[in-house]
């Protein structure tokens, strides 16, 4: 079974530039998550999709971050414009249903973003 795919793996941009990350979840997984992991911290949920609908985006900085999940499969996360504090690893995860009762989330390798 193929895992969660993310690209690019690394990205370096200057502040005020735009950047986009792509995620392809495990086939058949209805729930998709984007997390931000700042160095020395645990992953923080940015947005959660169930199929192509948003379940939770309460911690997404909507003035600069946006995300979509086309046709309930692939997803993109965009930052426009980027700030220095956006430097982090962006993790995508998927699960076969709303992760509850120990139903695990499968994580991709992440995209390491450096904003200069």
């Amino acid at each position, binding site marked *: 079974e193929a895992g969660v795919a993310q690209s690019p793996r690394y990205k370096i941009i200057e502040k005020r530039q735009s950047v986009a990350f792509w995620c392809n979840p495990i086939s058949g997984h209805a729930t998709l998550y984007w997390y931000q992991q700042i160095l020395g911290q645990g*992953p923080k949920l940015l947005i959660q999709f169930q199929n192509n609908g948003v379940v939770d985006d309460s911690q997404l900085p909507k003035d600069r971050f946006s995300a979509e999940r086309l046709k309930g499969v692939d997803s993109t996360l965009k930052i426009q414009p980027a700030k220095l504090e956006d430097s982090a690893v962006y993790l995508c995860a998927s699960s076969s249903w709303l*992760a509850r009762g*120990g139903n695990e989330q499968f*994580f991709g*390798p992440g995209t390491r973003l450096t904003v200069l």
Partner: protein
Amino acid sequence: DQQVKQNSPSLSVQEGRISILNCDYTNSMFDYFLWYKKYPAEGPTFLISISSIKDKNEDGRFTVFLNKSAKHLSLHIVPSQPGDSAVYFCAASEESYKYIFGTGTRLKVLA
């Protein structure tokens, strides 16, 4: 306000000995807890979970203990192996399905 805390950023253990990783939480509404392991340049991988209706869950060398009155959980690895060297995150959730992660503990198992 950090709802899930892992107060030990790092831990070193000799191979074959027990590793004990600790996690504290503040939200008494949390009713499900998970442990994830993370190797460098990889995403976290699920290790073991426990529901609040239990106080212990075991899977091979890994055991998670939950003390609800103390709002504390711990992960025991016995015996520890060099391949267990990684960063371990605990995570907690309540009915909202959203998981809150701790800051992680880096475990180093010495051969």
